[in-house]
């Protein structure tokens, strides 16, 4: 006995365009659409493009060329207006900040993502009473204006002197006393990062199949083992999103650094602070400002361009 072969379920593509067939058929309207999209691209990129151009211009080229024009003379061809001096100076002045930012952002990001994942699992995938208030407190933490904690925060790190507490550490090779400032920042960023990482992980964990987790319980796995063997491996994509998001947040922060750092060079200032201070010299150069801005932005730009897709997904959730 034979039966007709079972056709596999076709992959149903959702095609919005079906609903707007007119657009597909009418070439001109399609062109208008793309033209609009490109114009918007210009709007979003123009400031960045012009800033880059400014950053590679000599002062005189800056005064004589249009902001968004490259510093290249066509008649006669010359690169006279081109210079990387601003970049050299910017990198020189910001390199310690970049280093500090890395030392700060990487651990803070990993810590807050991990803790966020822990917490989200603990209140989402394990059933117990009264978890709602806890969840609400976690989530409300996202929306707290940081101004509301600044004064206590600065008082706190004045009272809790990590530098003295960790004094033995500074004697070790490669350690500096001012790392205590970075440690303070790591703690703060971790704590304030938890709510958002919690939310990201929670929305992800809520959508994990309940039945799958129950299956694991029936398979004899403990709460810990379920996390370790099922939830954690499945969280990889969400960790990517969270890490990207949190990294940019920490990297870009200025406020906490202003408040928590005691201030002063070598005190572990992250790159945003260093960039703010870039204008300290007498000669104000837009080229230097823009070059500095880009030097400081490069890591997050790279992260975005490389992982924009996941990021968009995470942001949307």
């Amino acid at each position, binding site marked *: 006995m034979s039966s007709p072969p*079972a056709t596999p379920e076709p992959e149903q593509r959702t095609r919005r365009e079906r609903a707007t067939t007119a657009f597909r058929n009418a070439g001109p309207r399609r062109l208008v659409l793309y033209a609009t999209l490109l114009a918007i691209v210009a709007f979003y990129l123009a400031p960045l493009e012009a800033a880059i151009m400014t950053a590679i211009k000599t002062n005189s080229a800056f005064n004589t060329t249009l902001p968004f024009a490259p510093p290249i003379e066509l008649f006669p061809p010359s690169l006279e207006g081109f210079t990387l001096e601003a970049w050299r100076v910017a990198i020189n002045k910001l390199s310690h900040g970049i280093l500090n930012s890395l030392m700060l952002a990487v651990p803070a990001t990993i810590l807050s993502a991990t803790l966020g994942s822990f917490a989200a699992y603990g209140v989402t995938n394990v059933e117990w009473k009264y978890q709602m208030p806890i969840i609400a407190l976690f989530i409300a933490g996202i929306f707290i204006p940081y101004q509301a904690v600044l004064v206590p925060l600065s008082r706190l790190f004045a009272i809790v002197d990590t530098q003295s507490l960790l004094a033995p550490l500074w004697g070790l090779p490669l350690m500096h006393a001012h790392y205590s400032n970075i440690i303070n920042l790591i703690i703060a960023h971790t704590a304030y990062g938890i709510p958002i990482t919690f939310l990201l992980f929670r929305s992800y964990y809520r959508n994990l*199949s309940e039945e799958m987790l*129950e*299956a*694991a319980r029936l*398979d*004899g796995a*403990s709460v810990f083992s379920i996390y370790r063997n*099922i939830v954690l491996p*499945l969280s990889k994509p969400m960790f990517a999103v969270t890490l990207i998001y949190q990294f940019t947040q920490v990297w870009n922060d200025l406020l906490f650094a202003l408040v928590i750092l005691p201030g002063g060079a070598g005190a572990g200032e992250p790159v945003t602070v260093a960039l703010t201070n870039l204008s300290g010299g007498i000669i104000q150069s837009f080229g230097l400002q823009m070059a500095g801005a880009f030097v400081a932005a490069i890591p997050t730009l790279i992260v975005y361009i490389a992982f924009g897709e996941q990021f968009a997904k995470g942001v949307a959730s």
Partner: protein
Amino acid sequence: MANLTLDGVTKWFDDDGDRIVAVDDVHVDIEDGEFLVLVGPSGCGKSTTLRMIAGLETVSQGDVRLGDRVINDQPPTVRDIAMVFQSYALYPHMTVQENMSFGLEESTGLSDDTIARRVEETAEMMGIDDLLDRKPGELSGGQQQRVALGRAIVRDPDVFLMDEPLSNLDAKLRSQMRTELQRLQEDLGVTTVYVTHDQTEAMTMGDRIAILNDGKLQQVATPIEAYHRPANLFVAGFIGEPSMNFFEMEREGDVLVGDDFEYSLTAETLDEIGDTERVTLGIRPEDVELVSGGEGAHEFRTVVDVVEPMGNENNVYLRFDAGGDDPQMTGDERTFVATVGGLQSIEDGQEVAARIPESAIHLFDTETGLALRNRTLDLSEAPVPNR
């Protein structure tokens, strides 16, 4: 392995202070090795019952016993029960091999070798040994279903619980897996509780079926018994497709009087009714006979409303020939169904006589719904021409 007993098991949920009773005082005794099917309409508490057995839901009242142990308070982890979920609930990041090993690793102290061997044996038995290195995402629905089963089987549990395991498969595959599953359970002889709301699965798969409605157990019986000897109106209406025809009647002496017709009863039947006044008469569509005459006992003149040809048989919707009825206004409530062989040609509007043989009728107390009398059965007929 052991027999599983639900002893007055009740489950209520808190809903903002209100109590929602999902399962209400259910008693079932499931024999060692028995295949019990739990059926009922959506929301009747099937899944909840199953989940209480598994330990995924606490028992509000009553006992769940495995053998002599009350297992109410045991966490699922230690119950030695395996469950197959509707969604299969395979671990998507693990290979089939890992999916199947996971339970053994977590719940037993077996060596890796032993586990690997057992997984391999089971996979072979299930015909999925060549899929062991794939991940669930790379499997078809049927294959996933088989892996889910394999994952349960490999643990060699005391009890299998299955919650609509076939409902995600397409019709053809479902009927194939149905037979396979049934055969497998017979071979393994593991006590099994199987939840479904699919008629066919309920009727064909179980040793016995337990029919739930609104959290209350309606009947536990073999499929045939449930079909032919329903305990009450609900079971009678729920089991069978098309449903049994019901007519609400008043008893007047030895005659039942309904809106459309009168039905005389023999003394024997009258005895069974006792002194119930309002009874519901039920007759299965295949027991309604279409005859040419129309003047015999228990024969009624009817008009064909709609014919649904099903190929092998036709469902004929009949209307009592009250004469002069506006045909357009004929609501659903006035028709009843007869199933006739697919080759008989019957057309809309045709007048036919329907015979409702007394031997085939069911009678229910309209108030309580309880069965007063079920059809007479003679199951001794030998294999004979089937139509």
